[in-house]
């Protein structure tokens, strides 16, 4: 069962935070196909947000084909995200690169900035 953390200061719409955290959980393998998402009641009881916000997030996830609502049963994960699990070769390559960056004298913020700029170049943002 995933738990959502709502950050009121983040400026990101609450429903988007739920969408993003669900996707993150799918990427990290915390959720797998067949798993049930918490019910809206469970989410709002823990987070004190509006039930419709949760439903909006679940509808968005459903629209993207990630989950499906089964009437009377709950909302279930349909497929996972990211074909590259935590121990994939790509991760190993990135780890090796980070090692080299540190050896080259870059600190955490330098790496962050560098990574972000490459990310923006290759994955242009289409939504805000």
């Amino acid at each position, binding site marked *: 069962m995933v738990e959502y953390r*709502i950050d*009121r200061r983040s400026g990101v719409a*609450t429903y988007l935070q739920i969408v993003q955290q669900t996707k993150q959980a799918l990427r990290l393998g915390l959720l797998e196909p067949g798993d049930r998402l918490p*019910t*809206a*009641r*469970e989410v*709002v*009881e*823990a*987070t*004190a*947000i*509006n*039930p*419709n*916000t*949760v*439903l909006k997030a*679940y509808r968005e996830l459903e629209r993207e084909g990630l989950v499906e*609502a089964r*009437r*009377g*049963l*709950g*909302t279930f994960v349909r497929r996972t995200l990211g074909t590259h699990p935590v121990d994939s070769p790509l991760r190993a390559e990135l780890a090796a690169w980070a090692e080299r960056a540190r050896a080259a004298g870059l600190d955490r913020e330098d790496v962050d900035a560098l990574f972000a700029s490459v990310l923006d170049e290759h994955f242009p943002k289409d939504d805000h």
Partner: protein
Amino acid sequence: MSSEKQGGRTTTPKGRGELRDQPRRRSRRQTPHRGTPEVALEATELTKRYSRKATAALDNCSFRLPAGRISALVGPNGAGKSTLLALAGGLLRPTTGTLNVFGGAPGEFRDRVAYLAQNKPLYGQLTIAETLRMGAELNPDRWDAPYAARIIEEGSLQPGQKIRRLSGGQRTRVALALALGKRPDLMLLDEPMADLDPLARHELMGTLMADAAERGTTVLMSSHIVSELADACDHLLLLGGGRIRLGGGIDDLLAAHTLVTGRGTPADLAPHTVVEARASGRGLTALIRRDGPVEGGWATEDPSLEELLLAHLRSPDAPALLTPGTTSTRTAVQA
């Protein structure tokens, strides 16, 4: 337990279908069906004056609150929030105009409505257990004893404690248990969270939201702290000087407004309605109610809920806006 016995039609509020997957599903009591979707609260030219000479606490208010909404009732001190809630709870009589609750007079469906006053009145001489017993006695057909007891337990309160020995926040918890224990269809909460610590506030708001998620309860709660309600509410009523200034779904209201910045005068912003314009360097920043796309060299931005409310409160002369569906059917669209 008692509410399980109630038979009747299961009203599923729009968009809450998926919420019905709860093991403890509760059916709502059959209600006289007058138009769809059901209207929880409808005010028509509602005016309340406390004495003949006094200015009106509520001045010719017309609006409707669809059932199943969780609505924030916002406004500065003295805006008429408490008056409106007390009128809806059947505790006051309107001077003129009408206020309908579930299509009837406010006193007609008293058992379906819970009201929590700002000062959280309780009987100091009773214990918590006796206070809950009173809830059971006064609501013989609806009282959910285990549910009320759970709310008390979550606050680590002992049933034998006398009410007069409780702190302000603990009293609020007992008062909320009493209000929620009757499993109302409409909750009227006057500054419900004011004297709660952050943890209790989060817990009780969560309990309230869970109740709404499970049963489609309509909630109207007042506050002058906007951030307290921004996440919990999907609907807004803004009162100012006894009048409704804004009414509708929060998303709809936000979408109807734009924050523009640029060089020019408020007159250049026609045909949009300028709610508030303030000088900003050589130009101005204005909150406008759009009428078509914004043209010209204006930089546009979506306003936050707080910006929207503050702009309206600072400009008492700005016209009111009620989104469709929140307008009382018996009056003109603009209040």
